[in-house]
């Protein structure tokens, strides 16, 4: 069966510090991978998506970047965090070229102080 792992679950970081959130998927290959951000009480904002290794599409200009060094690994990074980067970050995957459900990780609650 497929599983998705996302860590850490919670993170408190000072302004200006770097960020690295990791997401890995097991039990499938060639997944679409996504990073979403959910501000408190808000909907899901798509940040990045990837259809393959090294292929990253950015949805909104921002202080973050994403990388996909391996087929089932998706990393969200920042060189210098801003207060506005606080939020709930969710990694998700679905099947390539399929109209199938998306599976979400447990999420990382990031607080920038």
């Amino acid at each position: 069966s497929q599983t998705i792992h996302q860590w850490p679950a919670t993170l408190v970081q000072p302004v200006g510090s770097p960020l690295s959130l990791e997401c890995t998927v097991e039990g499938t290959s060639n997944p679409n991978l996504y990073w979403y951000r959910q501000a408190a009480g808000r909907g899901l904002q798509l940040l990045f998506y990837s259809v393959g290794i090294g292929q990253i599409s950015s949805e909104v200009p921002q202080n973050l970047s994403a990388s996909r060094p391996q087929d089932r690994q998706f990393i969200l990074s920042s060189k210098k965090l801003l207060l506005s980067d606080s939020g709930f970050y969710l990694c998700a995957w679905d099947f390539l070229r399929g109209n199938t459900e998306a599976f979400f990780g447990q999420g990382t609650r990031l607080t920038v102080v």
Partner: protein
Amino acid sequence: GQQVMQIPQYQHVQEGEDFTTYCNSSTTLSNIQWYKQRPGGHPVFLIQLVKSGEVKKQKRLTFQFGEAKKNSSLHITATQTTDVGTYFCAGSKSNDYKLSFGAGTTVTVRA
């Protein structure tokens, strides 16, 4: 770009009453999906609709996909406290890999 809009943003419901949340897209969708996110949790898939005019039921939940495949609705009957959470719709186009999520409807229930 594709936009999926969802209303209302908040729904306060008396236990036992019915309510509906609506989802509208600016473009024709190949499918619409619905997710539920419990407070503090992550979104969990509920259902997918693919056909024009499709209606699906899950116990007290009824999902509809519009004839033009641009809108959808979720109707919950006899609301219970277990229905608390945020309900998201998400759609994708046939030539696009990504899901676009609505802003969600956050449901609270008065016992």
